[in-house]
């Protein structure tokens, strides 16, 4: 029997990892992620989860440890945030190139300095070119469900998957979550059967020198895996829906069919945006939301299908690629630029470093997005405290 409990986002991951019958866990504590592995270490100590928990001296070592374990063909887990993920970076590339079916939780925390523990998507987005798949969560239920789905994706494609969610707004917020029954999860997620693994009986080389004769094709095959992921995401997301009653696709569209203005969001701010848009609809304004769940691979076709009908698109980025703009906005523009009937695209950067994305902020943003001249909407910083700025010379 499934049960419904009030749990924090971090523990939603822990329950997901337990239900996935993960065999090796390695992590290094970092706020706001710590509670994920704290609970998992208790589960291991209490023998309710038959996993080996490896304590290590850094995030780089944590990822190295699960790379080693996964190379032997076992199901693994690690979790981190911000500087911890940055420290892993070399092995984030390595693990994707090794085609290992890893799953990692990244609790979005702003990159320092200024020293911050609050939410900002830049940590995960800085890993966008590594080959890891990325899933962004809106609620604690989605965190648990996408953790399970991530293992299906990872193991079907032999590619690593990152489950991403906002610091504190989800990680430390408790709300009702349905925790599925173990036998139902077992049916959805059978034991890992790696095709290639380190095995004395069938020796193979791993991570060896790859001359220009071969490297190119290895990378092309990673792209092929991501292409397959776009189809697979909708398939196994629909299967999840049949088994557990909650459907997951690459995108979630809310009220987009007749929308003049579509807001594009990812992560927890999607949730508050729903509240604002629902109220606007009541007042007769045709506004919709596209929630990006899958960011890598980037679901270009699905995005084109839903956004091309709108007059305007306003992308809300809780991240900034300094010198360029919001990262989701850049990718949306790239996806749409070849269309002759493309909508006007406005890029809003808001809520950096955990600045609260309030109802008032979103309402003012919508008013602005309806009125603003398109040519002045390439990069709009929304919610800046102008009085605290000084002009750099």
């Amino acid at each position, binding site marked *: 029997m499934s049960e*419904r*409990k*009030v749990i924090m986002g971090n523990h939603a991951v822990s329950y997901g990892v337990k239900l996935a019958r993960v065999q090796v866990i390695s992590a290094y504590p970092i706020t*706001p992620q710590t509670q994920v592995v704290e609970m998992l270490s208790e589960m291991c100590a209490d023998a309710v989860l038959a996993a080996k928990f490896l304590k290590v001296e850094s995030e780089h070592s944590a990822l190295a440890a699960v790379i080693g374990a996964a190379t032997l063909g076992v199901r693994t887990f690690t979790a981190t945030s911000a500087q911890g993920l940055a420290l892993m970076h070399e092995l984030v590339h390595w693990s994707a190139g090794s085609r290992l079916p890893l799953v990692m939780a990244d609790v979005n925390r702003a990159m320092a300095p200024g020293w911050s*523990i*609050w939410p900002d998507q830049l940590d995960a987005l800085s890993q966008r070119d590594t080959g890891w798949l990325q899933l962004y969560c809106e609620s604690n239920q989605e965190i648990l469900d996408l953790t399970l789905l991530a293992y299906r994706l990872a193991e079907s494609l032999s590619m690593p998957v990152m489950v991403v969610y906002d610091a*504190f*707004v*989800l990680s*430390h*917020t*408790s*709300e*009702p979550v349905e925790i599925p029954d173990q036998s139902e999860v077992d049916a959805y997620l059978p034991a890992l059967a790696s095709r290639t693994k380190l095995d004395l009986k069938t020796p193979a080389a791993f991570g060896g020198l790859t001359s220009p004769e071969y490297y190119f094709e290895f990378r092309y095959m990673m792209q092929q895996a991501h292409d397959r992921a776009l189809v697979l995401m909708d398939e196994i997301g629909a299967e999840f829906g049949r088994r557990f009653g909650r459907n997951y696709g690459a995108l979630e569209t809310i009220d987009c069919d007749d929308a003049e203005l579509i807001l594009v969001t990812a992560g*927890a*701010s999607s*949730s*508050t945006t*729903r*509240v604002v848009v629902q109220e606007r609809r009541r007042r007769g304004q045709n506004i919709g939301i596209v929630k990006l769940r899958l960011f890598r691979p980037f679901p270009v076709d699905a995005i084109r299908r839903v956004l091309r009908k709108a007059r305007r698109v306003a992308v809300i980025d809780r991240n900034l690629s300094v010198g360029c703009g919001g990262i989701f906005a850049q990718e949306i523009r790239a996806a749409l630029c070849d269309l002759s009937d493309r909508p006007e695209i406005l890029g809003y950067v808001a809520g950096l470093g955990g600045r*609260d*994305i*309030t*109802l008032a902020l979103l309402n003012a943003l919508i008013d602005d997005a309806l009125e603003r001249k398109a040519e002045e909407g390439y990069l709009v910083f929304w919610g800046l405290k102008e009085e605290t700025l000084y002009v750099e010379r």
Partner: protein
Amino acid sequence: MIEVRIHGRGGQGAVIASKLLASAIFSEGKYVQCFPAIGVERRGAPVAAFLRVDDRFIYLRTDIAEPDHVVVLDQRLIVVAPVTEGLKPNGIILINSARSARSFSSLQGYRVYTIDANQIAGDHGLGSETAPIVNTVMAAAFLKVSQLATIEGLCKAIEDEVPIKRQANIAASNQAYARMQAFVGTAMKGEAGE
């Protein structure tokens, strides 16, 4: 939707109080969301935790700026923490204090209640004499004055989630719920904090 802010000091259990209230209220059919204020929490320093209650799933994920009710785990916080900031007129302020509600004359315009949670917690061996752990006692008292859930719901949450001294916490909560003494504030217009 009802929004609640809990003021406490690091170590008093404000965050656990918000969680136990959330679980108790959820178990009786309402939707809930709770979260701590995140900053540089340390033992003894002012902290806050928050709770939302609604009949439907709560999509709102913002800070709570204008709570309906406030719970204060240490009466000395009234002078150092912004306990009435944004508090809606006629909201409940439940204070852990041996004093009467009427004696908090600066809190006019709200429904002020007091309970000597230190004493009840002490009687049941919760925490130490100088640092009693009052979260379960205050949660029980708050449920009594807010009617958001029954004491049975809270006791079940304590049973499920409190790692130690479950029976002492349940006994203390029952006592707080039964002994809750109400002193309703006088003025109705929100002119508090004068």
